């Protein structure tokens, strides 16, 4: 039986309504310009201004105390790396100047970082590792359904009181879970990092990290980063170019200032080539 004109119009109308409903449930496709109220709302957030330096003594303690729950197969590999480091032959996990990546970027740095709050976003700016940064979207968006894997992954965040809760996925499988610069394994994919960042004193910030990596960890690894606030301008963040140490300053035949390759050993040290 052929549908009547009326039935056709009803069907078209229903289809249009369904499409509109589906569109409303999808992510917004633009980043709207912030309104004055959006800037004003930032004043209600906790004060994380200043430059933050990691507590190196806390880092050293956690390397011993926050044992990583490796799977048995992963632990066997880790034990060899620990033995090599203890013997004075550390493997260089981060010597190729590829980004340190999450979560190592937060956990092993010896350098400063700072936090910027803008409408819909928190940005963490680093010093070492080539001044890399993290963009944490706080505008209510979800993770992409199939994010391109990256070194820092895709981060979304929201505020629970004075605590910033950050959820990160989409991290490259080759990036390390590493208790130190010489001991660690690739996460091998499907890693998920949840962070709770909050002040625990007037000038002390704590990032509690929960790292799930089902291919190398038997259960979620819980650890933390402690940062100290610095107001003195001598702490202002400087440029950090990872490859710069591979070069020394020289002059070419035409008198131009040029970078020249500097010799290094396999272990990453610059040493005179006299041995």
């Amino acid at each position: 039986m052929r549908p009547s004109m009326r039935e056709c119009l009803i069907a078209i109308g229903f289809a249009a309504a369904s499409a509109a409903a589906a569109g409303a449930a999808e992510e917004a496709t633009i980043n709207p310009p912030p309104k004055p109220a959006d800037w004003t709302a930032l004043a209600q957030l906790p004060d994380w201004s200043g430059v933050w330096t990691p507590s190196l003594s806390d880092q050293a303690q956690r390397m011993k105390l926050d044992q990583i729950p490796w799977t048995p197969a992963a632990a066997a590999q880790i034990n060899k790396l620990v033995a090599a480091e203890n013997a004075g032959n550390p493997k260089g996990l981060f010597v190729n100047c590829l980004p340190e990546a999450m979560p190592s970027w937060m956990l092993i740095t010896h350098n400063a970082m700072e936090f910027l709050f803008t409408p819909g976003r928190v940005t963490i700016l680093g010093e070492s590792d080539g001044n890399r940064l993290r963009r944490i979207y706080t505008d209510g968006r979800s993770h992409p359904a199939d994010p391109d894997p990256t070194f820092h992954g895709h981060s979304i965040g929201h505020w629970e009181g004075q605590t910033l809760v950050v959820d990160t996925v989409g991290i490259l499988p080759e990036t390390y879970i590493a208790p130190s610069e010489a001991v660690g394994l690739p996460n091998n994919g499907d890693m998920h990092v949840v962070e709770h960042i909050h002040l625990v004193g007037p000038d002390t910030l704590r990032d509690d990290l929960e790292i799930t990596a089902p291919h190398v960890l038997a259960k979620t690894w819980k650890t933390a980063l402690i940062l100290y606030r610095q107001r003195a301008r001598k702490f202002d963040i400087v440029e950090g170019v990872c490859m710069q140490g591979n070069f020394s300053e020289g002059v070419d035949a035409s008198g131009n200032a040029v970078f020249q390759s500097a010799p290094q050993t396999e272990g990453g040290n610059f040493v005179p080539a006299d041995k």
Partner: protein
Amino acid sequence: MTKLGIVYRLMYRALLLVAAVLTAIVSAPSVAHHSFAMFDFNNTVTFKAATVKEFRWTNPHVVLLVEGARQPGAPPELWSMELTSPGNLTRMGWSRHSFKPGDQIELQFNPLRDGKHGGAFKQAKLATGQVLTSSVRDYEKLEKPDIK
């Protein structure tokens, strides 16, 4: 310059040339962010009279090249000292002018365990009497954190 001094200077230049050639042949990895386990922190070497040859104020690690001898009177040799980053050193009062070629210093360092002429910088005393140290962890204690 004494005859012996000229010989050392020529040797030094030859070493630099060898180093440059080696670098051209070998694709060396970056210093980047590495473990310090290759240094022997149970062993501190002192050069009573070292001469600064070069001071590289670069990320991620500052490098100090010196000529020094473990024993007074022994022939000086070229050594390379590794330090933390310019950012961290600036916070401890250093600058890219902290050393200049020709400076005479008393140097302490932890040597590489493999016997190569490299070390982790520990302390330098300048002719002015100024003492420069570079331990970020020691410095952290001076910076009054909330949590001891």
